[in-house]
């Protein structure tokens, strides 16, 4: 088994009566860019907080870099960069914050910080409270990226950033982060960005993982088949969802779409389309279901 940078098993966490996490199991291999996807309130931020040692799970186990984030908090935090909320010390300027943050991390690089500040267009002389939301986000990211961390955990990093800066950020992440043995976990709503840079994805809904797999495998396997005909199947092994309108059935299958299409043809149906689905479509198909299968590991 490859070396797992993050491993969470059956995490349970309640806030009052609400179960934020309901048996969440997650594995992030070293060197991966892991897209952690889910709706608001699905449990992404709670999971990240547990990884950062900011929250204690009621049940389950978690290890980050092979360490327990509660017991070995300092070791985890010195080697991991977290960006969770967009709030820093409001009376400090960017330069002050760089100076403040520098002292905590041995691998800190001022050169990297300055580079990111330039590329992302972050004003370093303005006090934090006067920055726009986008600039605040960028500054938070900059501080984490200049840390020289082995693992970076970003909670919705592109929210509030304009498309140009998002593009620059992705470029920086790829340049400096992937392929170097360093690992990146990012949670996001922006599926199109995750789709480009992630090699693993984990889709979480209602506190559980619905799908965790390599993105390429998901793309190769999942598919949409549209067909019209008589007595078309409504259930079957690989069918995740089926909807019907105007005599056309649209199937979402989790594997073997060509075979399924061939099977339908052999039953006399007219197959209108058998094609791949993008991440957004897969996400909606999985999360929109009522009775979804629980854990799905394709790799």
């Amino acid at each position, binding site marked *: 088994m490859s070396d797992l940078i993050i491993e969470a098993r059956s995490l349970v966490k309640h806030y009052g009566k609400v179960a934020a996490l309901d048996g969440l199991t997650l594995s992030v291999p070293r060197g991966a860019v892991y897209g952690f996807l889910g709706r608001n309130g699905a449990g992404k931020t709670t999971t990240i907080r547990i990884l950062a040692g900011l929250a204690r799970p009621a049940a389950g186990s978690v290890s980050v870099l092979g360490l327990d984030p509660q017991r070995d908090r300092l070791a985890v935090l010195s080697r991991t960069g977290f960006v969770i909320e967009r709030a820093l010390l409001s009376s400090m300027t960017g330069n002050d914050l760089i100076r403040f943050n520098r002292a905590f991390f041995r691998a800190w690089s001022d050169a990297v910080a300055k580079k990111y500040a330039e590329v992302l267009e972050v004003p370093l002389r303005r006090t934090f409270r006067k920055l726009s939301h986008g600039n605040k986000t960028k500054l938070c990211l900059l501080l984490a990226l200049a840390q020289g961390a082995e693992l970076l955990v970003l909670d919705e990093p592109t929210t509030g950033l304009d498309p140009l800066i998002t593009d620059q950020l992705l470029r920086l992440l790829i340049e400096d982060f992937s392929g170097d043995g360093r690992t990146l976990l990012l949670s996001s709503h922006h599926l199109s960005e995750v789709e480009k840079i992630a090699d693993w994805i984990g889709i979480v809904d209602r506190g559980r993982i619905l799908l965790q797999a390599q*993105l*390429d495998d998901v793309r190769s396997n999942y598919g949409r088949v549209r067909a019209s005909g008589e007595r078309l199947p409504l259930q079957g092994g690989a069918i995740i969802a089926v909807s019907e309108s105007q005599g056309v059935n649209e199937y979402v299958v989790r594997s073997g779409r060509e075979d399924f299409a061939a099977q339908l043809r052999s039953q006399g149906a007219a197959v209108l389309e058998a094609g791949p689905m993008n991440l957004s479509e897969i996400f909606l198909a999985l999360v929109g279901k009522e009775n979804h299968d629980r854990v799905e590991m394709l790799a």
Partner: protein
Amino acid sequence: MLFHVHSASGVPIYLQIENQVRHAVAAGALRQDDVLPSVRKLAVELRVNPNTVARAFQNLERDGVIRTVPGGGCYVNRQSPGLLRSEKMRRLRPLATQLAVEALQLRLSREETLRLLEQSFNELGDGHE
């Protein structure tokens, strides 16, 4: 930029890159001993994960389309006559079947279908070199 990827198309990115390289080679845009950009550089340019590009390059190398020189650089191979004819036919067969099936479904005649094929060949230029 020689390559472009559509991240939202649902086709795996490594496959898109592979196909684009093959297409470029087939169309003569990439000739023997042309150098491809490095994995990292291409990844940064396309804003995609380097592992994805690496996978595409690995597949292309396995299939003999390109070769990696130790010390850096990927070069386009001479398109191997060594690839057995039967192997080539095997590779094309599923595409041919798919074309035929689609044509039947859409009730296109054999002549019209063959004419389409001819058009594609003409656009690419018959073979290369």
